């Protein structure tokens, strides 16, 4: 019987499109009791992977990463078979003006929300935000990163379940047969599978910095204009 390490790796690669690196797996297994049955181990490994930073936890194989010239805007369209695992670094809703989003964040900071014309008091809880996030429009633009650390943008060509302002940063997605147009990945339900997960530090920083980011983006656009 082969060692649990390669069995877990094979299992995760075929079912999830996630190929953990041998170093990560080894250190993961040291934290587990050797008597734990394999399915349970695999599940725990998957859970840990989703909460990890894939630039350190996944193997950067050429087929599971984007090619080095991914950003080349001269390429009108190409299709990548994958599967490529990526993690989300930021998300924005392209259908809303940044100012509109800033106003909504500030109202929430004051503990106010709106229900139609009525101004209501809301507690800034996670649930409250999720409620708001559910209603956002999209399409969304996501900053993504693969196991090699390459960063690029993805936009929703069609709405993908799990993508929205309410999603967690560090959330993992697997792309199969995905189209890249002018250096931007086009996300669709058929090519994009959201696995979930979250990188705590990244998520916190994104959330706290979001208002400043939006303001900076407005200023950058003003300068460009």
């Amino acid at each position: 019987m082969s060692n649990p390490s390669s069995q877990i790796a094979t299992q995760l690669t075929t079912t999830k499109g996630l190929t953990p690196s041998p170093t990560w797996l080894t250190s993961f297994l040291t934290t587990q009791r050797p008597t734990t049955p394999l399915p349970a181990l695999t599940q725990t490994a998957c859970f840990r992977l989703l909460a990890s930073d894939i630039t350190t936890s996944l193997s950067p194989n050429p087929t599971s990463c984007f090619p080095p010239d991914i950003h080349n805007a001269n390429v009108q369209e190409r299709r990548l078979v994958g599967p490529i695992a990526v993690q989300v670094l930021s998300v924005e809703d392209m259908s809303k003006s940044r100012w509109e989003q800033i106003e909504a964040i500030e109202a929430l900071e004051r503990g106010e929300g709106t229900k139609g014309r009525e101004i209501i008091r809301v507690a800034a809880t996670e649930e409250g935000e999720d409620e708001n996030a559910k209603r956002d429009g999209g399409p969304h633009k996501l900053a993504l990163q693969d196991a090699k650390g390459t960063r690029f943008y993805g936009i929703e060509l069609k709405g993908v379940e799990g993508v929205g302002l309410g999603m967690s940063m560090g959330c993992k997605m697997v792309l199969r047969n995905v189209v890249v147009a002018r250096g931007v990945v086009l996300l669709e339900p058929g090519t994009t599978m959201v696995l979930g997960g979250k990188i705590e530090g990244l998520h916190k920083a994104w959330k706290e910095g979001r208002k400043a980011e939006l303001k900076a983006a407005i200023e950058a656009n003003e300068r460009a204009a």
Partner: protein
Amino acid sequence: MARKILCVAEKPSIAKSVAQHLSGGQFNTHSIRGNTFIKNYEFDFNFNPPWGQCSVTMTSVIGHLTSLEFNEQYRKWHSCSPVRLFDAPVETEVDKDKKAIADNITAQARYAKALFIWTDCDREGEHIGAEVRQSAYKGNGTIEVKRAQFSNTERAHVIRAAHNPINLDERQVNAVSARIELDLRLGAAFTRFQTLTLRTLGGDLEDRVISYGSCQFPTLGFVVDRYFRVKQFVPENFWSIKVMHKRDDVEVTFSWRRHRLFDRASVVILFERCLTARIAKVIKLQKKPTSKWRPLPLTTVELQKLGSMFLRMDSQRVMKVAEDLYNKGWISYPRTETDSFDKGMDLKKLIEKQEQDQAWGGYATSLLRGGFRQPRSGRHNDQAHPPIHPVNFVASGSLSGDERRVYEFVVRRFLACCSEDAKGESTTVEIECGDEIFFANGLLVLERNYLEVYPYEKWNSSQPLPRFSLHETFEPTEANITEGETSPPGYLTEPELISLMDANGIGTDATMAEHIAKIKEREYVMTQPRGGGAQTNGNGNGNSGRGGRRERSGRGGAQGGNNATGSGGGSVQQFIPTTLGVALIEGYNGIGLETSLGKPFLRKEMEIKMKQICAGTKSRNDFVNETIEQYTELFVRTQQQVDVLKAACRKYVFGEQP
């Protein structure tokens, strides 16, 4: 000798028309000593048992008879620390200028078997009824007290009300008396405190009263809030894609399903993919009947909003005019939340009365000849009054300009309610170009129906779309990226302000217009026509204005003065806060109270609790005590952090840099 019944209405005009209806026009008029507006009308009327044939004296008050005041020793501004006003003893007094009216009721009650109260059927009217009762008891401790239930002064309605009296609703009386007490205490405490404190800053603040009111401040808060949204607004670019196609000599423009995106690079990529696809395919072709719904029956809030939109009158002016029309018997009671007509009401009879009009008479006739539809029912019902509707016909020649316009609006709205919806056919063509979807809509109006009589709404056919068939493919003539820029919101207009007050429970439909007028009068806000220069109005006539009804005592020509602004103007008025208005709201928001006085939450809570009193689920005392406790705490916090308020005034009023 027949028994005597004393009837008391809320205003002289109502007393007169009720007297006319009950007496059949046969009555004697007597002046009373000390007031030239009030008359006593004497006649006989045959009431239902147990009363039977009685001699009647019909008279009236003019709004509230009494007001609540602090005891003598607390009345002077420097007599005590403002915080004492939260629990200082208070007493109810007959207003000096109402003394003769109260005496008249006391005297008339002396020989009467019963008192019939004919005040308006709403919360405020119920309380006025209790004030009348108090004066009557002074003359006759055993007089029986009844109340007439009516909502317009149409003859049959009035007679029915006289035959079916009910009792005064003590809960409503209590709710209003609690509100009066709270308005007095909170208003006086904060007004004295902030006036005296800010006075020390000198300059423009040295000799003005800086009043506080629990409705005034949230109302001002809405105006300031919007002002900052306008001021801070940053425009941003957005991009969209348009697809054009020419067929049968018609140029159709297809709009992007995504509407617009704020990311240029993404739009360029999506656009390129459309161009590459080259061919568009019709994926949806839908023709369906559509209709534009006739309006709901008219409520006060709607009348005020539409009044400033269509009739170019401010809400206070509209209400004043509507009330005059009601007093004269042309329309039903104009203060109502109800937006559905009672099924039993004979609407056709009301339509019949409008047949004689030059402008809409023909339309009224067409309704009676088969066009009539039972009006839609809204979800609001105050259980006291029907929606606003015309009660009698009056030729437009015998009305003044503003009266004519409000009457015409009420009639047209009523006829529109009783009409069929407007009917049309809408066509939607949806095409797919690569992964992007575009659509074009067409509208063909088939029957205008209610729109014939209701020119305040528009619904027009669009340019007809050329023929397309489902699944067909074609090569669009042209596709473009378009670019645009977001524009700031406008300053708050009166209809918007009323909607906000309504949605947030600030004031009742009966008092909203007064609160708006008050913040103008206090120079917390200015109004200007949309797209014009600012103009200040009202120069504080020093009326303390407690106890809602004082300003709207509706005695015909005797009032006036207050309504100089707003009627003639050509466009919708918008509100801009003055530097003082901004300073007050920013100051209170900065103090860090859990709920700022400039926000609507506290007042909304009060309104809810008043409704609970009316429903019998809360006692007057609990309500008053809870609210006083809440505001005392806010008051103490405000005192501690008064520097924040002063700093806001220095910054905004005097333009000092912090």
